[in-house]
């Protein structure tokens, strides 16, 4: 059960005192205006003035009937509860219907409103509204246009540039140089610099593994470029490393995988 805040308890106590003083006056006047009473979160007594006289009379009659021994007396109290203007607020009073006459309020009411708790103070609203748009058409149209553009580009490019088909594979004729596909030429370049086990397996294996672990090694929660200068520098170096190696292997390696300049010795590169 939620703990009742101290200020509400205090306010309820004040109202109770006020009601007691009122009862001591002996003037239980229904006609008294409740203008000075706080509106919504005031305890029940403050709202008493708002109960129509007819309803009060009805509940009084029912109570008398109950006091007289009639078993359906509780029903009358129930009606009064439902008709109260403050109905809908959280009622934390003792169950009015079963309450013995002893538990009645100062004016003969069988229940009281303890407090009205506003939703904001007990509910933790986590979702913040985000600026969203409908996927159709805003995203789908973009995707459609992009896919059309890619298709058109490929169609036109393929119409003018043919994929290579060299002569039939021949085990007895090793081309010089023999090169891997372009995305492995960085590795092949490493092969010319290091021992094959280091260049062909260890470095790419560690590289892939390190790449997979990137989100777990980078503990910096920010995604703003100015906060992650180190990560960005490191990754850029990594990219440059591979780009330079790949370009080297692709364009600057000729017969025997020796260093050549493409503008003097020509291209030794097939896609």
């Amino acid at each position: 059960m939620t703990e009742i805040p101290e200020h509400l308890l205090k306010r309820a106590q004040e109202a109770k005192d006020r009601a007691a003083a009122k009862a001591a006056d002996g003037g239980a006047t229904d006609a008294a205006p409740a203008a000075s009473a706080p509106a919504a979160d005031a305890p029940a007594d403050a709202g008493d003035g708002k109960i129509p006289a007819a309803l009060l009379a009805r509940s009084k009659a029912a109570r008398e009937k109950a006091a007289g021994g009639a078993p359906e007396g509780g029903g009358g109290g129930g009606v009064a509860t439902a008709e109260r203007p403050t109905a809908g607020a959280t009622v934390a009073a003792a169950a009015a219907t079963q309450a013995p006459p002893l538990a009645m309020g100062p004016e003969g009411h069988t229940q009281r409103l303890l407090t009205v708790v506003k939703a904001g103070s007990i509910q933790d609203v986590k979702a913040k509204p985000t600026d969203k748009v409908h996927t159709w058409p805003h995203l789908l149209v973009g995707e459609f246009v992009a896919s059309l553009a890619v298709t058109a580009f490929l169609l036109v490019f393929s119409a003018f540039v043919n994929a290579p088909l060299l002569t039939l594979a021949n085990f007895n004729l090793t081309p010089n140089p023999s090169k891997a596909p372009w995305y492995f030429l960085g590795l092949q370049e490493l092969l010319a610099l290091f021992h094959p086990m280091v260049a062909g397996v260890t470095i790419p294996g560690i590289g892939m593994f390190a790449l997979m672990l990137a989100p777990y090694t980078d503990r910096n929660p920010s995604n703003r470029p100015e906060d992650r200068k180190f990560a960005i520098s490191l990754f850029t170096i990594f990219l440059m490393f591979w780009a330079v190696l790949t370009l080297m292997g692709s364009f600057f390696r000729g017969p025997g995988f020796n260093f050549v300049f493409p503008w003097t010795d020509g291209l030794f590169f097939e896609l």
Partner: protein
Amino acid sequence: MARTIGDKGRGAHLAERVSKLGETVQGSQAWNSIFRPGSIFRKGYTDSPRNRSYVIMNSVLYHLHPVKVKRHAVKVSYTLCLGGMSFFLFILLTVTGIFLMFFYRPTAAQAWDDIYTLQTSVTFGLLVRNMHRWAAHLMVLAVFLHMARVFYHGAYKAPREFNWVIGVILLTLTLLLSFTGYLLPWDQLALWAVTVGTNMMGYTPVFGSQVRFVLLGGVEIGTDTLLRWYVLHVLMFPFVIVIFMAIHFWRVRKDGGISGPL
């Protein structure tokens, strides 16, 4: 061409009949059974927020996209379309690849001849083969750039760590798909590029020669290697990559859509 009044009348009549036919087709049970409520192809589709939601919610697209996305997520300048482009290239490669499969037998005796015949005697054969080849190179590039884009946006950070790992696996699979396809034309380029590539893998510590034997289906590249790489290329790797793509796309949504804004 000169038009008479009579022609005009007939044209109007024809237009009326066409629109009437369209109405009938769109009102038919078959049409309505194909296009669910809210589909833009349904009769009486109007552009309303409710129908915009239905277009996604009531179609197979709901597997891929939520009804609404963050406004910044649709900016081309943020994603550069690289992930979507990789996926689209994969679809394009599947379609062109299926076409190529009709004309190709993966044996050392027939492979090169089949490709040559495809290029010279099959309608659109050369064009489709070109598209398959260039799309493959483009896909490697697109996946790689997609990875770089994601890194520079810090999009691999919580809660998207695992999706980054899936992404690295997808990059590896893309490279493997491309590399296994490289051998299939069985020309000098294919043979020696693959020889260089598999020799590199043969330097794996401890299991080097075993790894090479499994890859080649023998001690030398031959017709067994061709069959092995063909099956890997057209069946196994596509199957595996589709599973990982499904997880990848699902995680994008479950991790709260794409990252950002910065």
